[in-house]
């Protein structure tokens, strides 16, 4: 990783907070559950940390901790993505003729 000065990291954090508020305040109430599970998926990015820890582990303690973290984070990423996709696939504009429901999707 590139060493970034702390103040710069804090500046990035601050901007991300404002950006997050700005983008997410545009999400309609209707999509709040997919927003939550989508956000769930995004915090699965901690998988990067888990890989780094496990990949750099040389004692049993770190291996166990890193492995557990990796399993949890992967479940988070994969599960979060599939749940969100499944949910979003259900939102339809108007009812389709029933018999063609599957094909028209």
């Amino acid at each position, binding site marked *: 990783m*590139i060493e*970034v000065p702390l103040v710069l*990291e804090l500046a*990035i*954090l601050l901007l*991300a907070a404002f950006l*997050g*508020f700005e*983008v*997410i305040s545009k999400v*309609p*109430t*209707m999509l*709040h*559950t*997919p*927003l*939550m599970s*989508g*956000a*769930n*998926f*995004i*915090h699965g*990015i*901690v*998988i*990067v*940390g*888990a*890989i*780094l*820890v*496990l*990949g750099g*582990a040389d004692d049993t303690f*770190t291996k166990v*901790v890193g*492995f557990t973290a*990796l*399993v*949890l*984070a*992967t*479940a*988070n*990423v*994969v*599960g*979060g*993505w*599939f*749940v*969100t*996709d*499944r*949910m*979003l696939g259900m*939102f*339809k504009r108007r009812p389709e003729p029933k018999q063609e429901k599957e094909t028209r999707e």
Partner: protein
Amino acid sequence: MISDPDVVGLLYLVTIACFVVSLKFLSSPRHARKGNWVGGAGMLVAIVTTLLLEGLENWVLIVIGLVLGSVVGVVGARTVRMTAMPQMVAIFNGVGGGAAALVALSEWHNVDGPVWDETISIVLSALIGSISFAGSVVAFAKLQELVSGRPIVFPAQNIVNIAVLVAAAVLGVVAVAGVEEQWVLYTLVALALLFGVMFVLPIGGADMPVVISLLNAFTGLAASATGFVLDSTVLIVSGMLVGAAGTLLTLLMAKAMNRSVTNVIFGAFGQVQTGAGSGRAADDGRTVRATTPEDVAVQLSFARKVIVAPGYGMAVAQAQHDVRQLADVLEEAGVEVKYAIHPVAGRMPGHMNVLLAEANVPYTQLFEMDEINPEFPQTDVVLVIGANDVTNPAARSDPGSPIYGMPILDVDKAASIVVLKRSMNPGFAGIDNELYLDPKATMLFGDAKDSVLKLVAAVKAL
């Protein structure tokens, strides 16, 4: 292998851009699914980039971990029922928070003489991650009804909780002050886990949307703190985006209940109510009128406009498909049908929308509270299906009521109201609903799914 740090940085930047775009796409249900694919692509870039970094070892463990986690994730995501979505979101929150805390633990274990800002990040990541993990597991257990969904309280609860949190914070300060013993962080994690359990336990059913949003924000912030530990911009930004989402939802939910977030956390909802001077309306001689599916069917078929107000009861009874069927039958008979969605109906933000979407109800038929409230006076029949507190007129009229001031669906302004309800038990807030005593209201008792099916049959028989 990628060795150039600039290339690595750029690839992570791609991930950040993808995440922001995926959230941006969520502003409309038309693009939302595409957005999720963009987010997925971003995540893939980040994972592949990390795997290609130089000097990684333990490949066997990494591969097993990735496969195991993927299997758990896919199976969980594929098999979960839409009504169980709040639990699912809670548990994914938990695993993310847990992973963040574990990464912090291992950094603490391995870094010799960390500098103060690194220690602060480790402490925050471990603290928030652990609270989120334990809290989410309890929230999951409550929603899954492994433990009682009702508030669990004991004397001096708030004082004990705060004491635990303060103790954890003190240990954090000790660690930052330079005491680099292993036990400091272990004890801190143990206390944070304890706090996580104790802070969710007393929070009751209807407050769950607030808690889940809050835990979502916590996990995001924990991931962000982990980013500071590892000097990883992608973690800092992504974590913060989630932190912002969770915070925003928490505030929205609390606002929709006219309560402050602190009140939700420390108020133990079901508990405060009992003494309040509410729900005494029964004393003035008005009574609840029960009705039959046949009568309701006649009412519905001859109505011009019907509004359905669903609540958690519909989710519990898995009645969403049957509700949709009823709406179809009515629409064929020329009745206009709309759905009124209260922001905190159900157990998580947007819960009702997802359930009705699953039942193929087009989202153009779903209306938010502010949109639909002016329409109730022109509505012939309102069907209240398993919703209680969000329709209680006491929120407008009775200053003594614990939900006084909470914005509600103005169902009492419709020409007639039919309430589908299992029994006369009060809702999760534990208070009586004056709506049931309204002369315009009738009650159809029974399981929501059963009742709706009977209604469908009765309407068809007409």
